[in-house]
């Protein structure tokens, strides 16, 4: 008997069946989600790219052969070679090491900006959706007001007020990044709060806070996770843009956007200084977007086209 069809096994007891097929896997929600995720090869590519970037970011000191800020004036402007895989920059710093540390900057900015945005957006979204009324009105007007501004113009102006640097870039990106998460959370809460499980919880006297965090939150996390994977590359892109303009991350901390911006003056001669950071930014965006698409298929099946 090679295969058991449902009709053949329908009359049998459950116990001998289990003995016949001891490794039968349960279709848990998590396993189903993984199956949906891995069904698309592109999402696996995205996962691999993001994993590689995280590896570079975490283990940068082990991967990078040189210090990212160690000038060597006898070895300036070198093209890629065996010793310097990506060449050296104008003051002889190993470009490969700077690219590796750039991954750390990008990931740190992207993930922490989104983490801050998540906390603010989730909290305000839950409050707006659950309380309703005047609180909801005020939060949503704040959301509208910030969203009406062009994001880049807002970021540039705010950064000029605050001054450049890692912390301020983070503040500026988080200041706009929480908006989509807040909107999404509120919409999800509105669609869930009249469901039976919430009414039941309220009927047996569960507190509003517990309803929000123990009952609603797990049920709305899927779309929120998807929104985060969209938000991370957006933050990384914004950081690259701001650093490109020279108002983002301060040197000597390497940032791909800053490296691209500096390379523009020499692009006709020293192509490697423009190519590698540009490719890294593109690769990062691609990785996160493919991962996000896969996660959307896996966690939010209704939105599949």
């Amino acid at each position: 008997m090679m295969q058991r069809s449902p009709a053949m096994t329908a009359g049998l007891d459950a116990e001998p069946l289990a003995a016949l097929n001891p490794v039968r896997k349960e279709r848990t929600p998590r396993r189903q989600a993984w199956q949906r995720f891995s069904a698309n090869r592109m999402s696996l590519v995205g996962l691999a790219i993001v994993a590689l970037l995280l590896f570079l970011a975490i283990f940068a000191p082990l991967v990078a052969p040189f210090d990212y800020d160690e000038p060597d004036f006898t070895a300036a402007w070198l093209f890629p070679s065996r010793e310097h895989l990506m060449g050296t920059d104008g003051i002889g710093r190993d470009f490969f090491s700077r690219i590796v540390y750039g991954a750390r900057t990008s990931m740190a900015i992207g993930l922490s900006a989104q983490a801050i945005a998540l906390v603010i957006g989730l909290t305000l979204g839950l409050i707006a959706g659950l309380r309703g009324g005047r609180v909801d009105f005020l939060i949503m007007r704040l959301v509208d007001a910030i969203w009406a501004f062009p994001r880049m113009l807002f970021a540039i102006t705010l950064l000029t007020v605050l001054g450049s640097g890692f912390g301020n870039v983070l503040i500026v990106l988080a200041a706009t990044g929480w908006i989509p998460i807040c909107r999404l959370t509120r919409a999800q809460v509105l669609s869930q709060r009249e469901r039976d499980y919430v009414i039941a919880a309220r009927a047996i006297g569960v507190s509003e806070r517990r309803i929000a965090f123990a009952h609603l939150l797990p049920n709305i996390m899927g779309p929120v996770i998807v929104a985060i994977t969209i938000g991370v590359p957006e933050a990384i892109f914004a950081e690259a843009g701001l650093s490109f303009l020279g108002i983002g991350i301060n040197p000597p901390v390497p940032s791909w956007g800053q490296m691209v911006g500096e390379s523009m003056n020499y692009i006709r001669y020293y192509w490697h200084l423009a190519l590698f950071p540009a490719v890294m930014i593109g690769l990062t965006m691609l990785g996160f977007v493919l991962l996000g698409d896969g996660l959307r298929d896996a966690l939010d099946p209704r939105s599949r086209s």
Partner: protein
Amino acid sequence: MGRYLIIRLGGLAMMLFIVSVIVFVLMHLIPGGPYDESKMPLSEAAKANIMRSYGLDKPLWEQYLRYVGNALRFDFGYSYQSPGETVDQLIGRVWLVSLQLGAMTLAVAIPLGLLLGIISARHQNSWIDNLVTFLATLGIVLPHFVLGILLILVFSNLLHLLPTGGWDGPKTWIMPVIAYAVGPMGIIARYTRVSLIDVFGADYLRTARAKGLTEQIILRRHVLRNASVPILTVVGPLVPDLLTGSIFIESIFRIPGLGGYFVSSIFARDYPMIMTLALLSACVVGVAYLLTDLIYLVIDPRIRLQ
């Protein structure tokens, strides 16, 4: 219709007012002024003179009212970073370049995006569809400055076919337009594909076929007309974005357009220029949204005025 227009224009004026207040407050929060020692070493007397002639010695609320009062009469003052030129002369000169770039980008992105979307939907789930969808995703995902750099490296450095930058003649237009158009093109292609596939499955299309209409008429009268509403929803917001210039594209290809002035005006504390640029982009966005809504009314009689 008249009433609707008046309400919408009133809303636009309200938005411009709010933007003007916020931008005014934000730009005066930036430390330093346009005539600081580090920017322009002047004698005390000369500095005081300039400050007085531009009204910078007045209290802030009075400066704001003066700006708004003059702006209502289309007098936007003098630009600090380009002395001797009024703000509207300066903007008129540089915006023309950005408009040219934006118009060419739209002329490439919209027809090609539609075409790719239609091809993709016609051959749904075939290799052509997969290829187009992959390219569209790539176009949306890659930041346009990354694409611009790759283009320069290939076509200027490697092949020596095109100049690396500047803005004189068709040869300098090719790369910026491509780099700028690929993203919007991808977005339009993807939305066109999805909304066409939606329409292809609709009952009224089966009815149209059943009563013996030719494919030509079905495509023109039923498919494109119904698919155009969701497509318009994504094209509408793209237009003002493309018409107000890109900071990055203009910086990478050294194009003397409006984009660069968003940054340089803030650095130079060029207050009249910052205000006017913010109001201009808010205005372009508002008008584009209004026009989008009006076009909805024309192409879809089911949409009613509210």
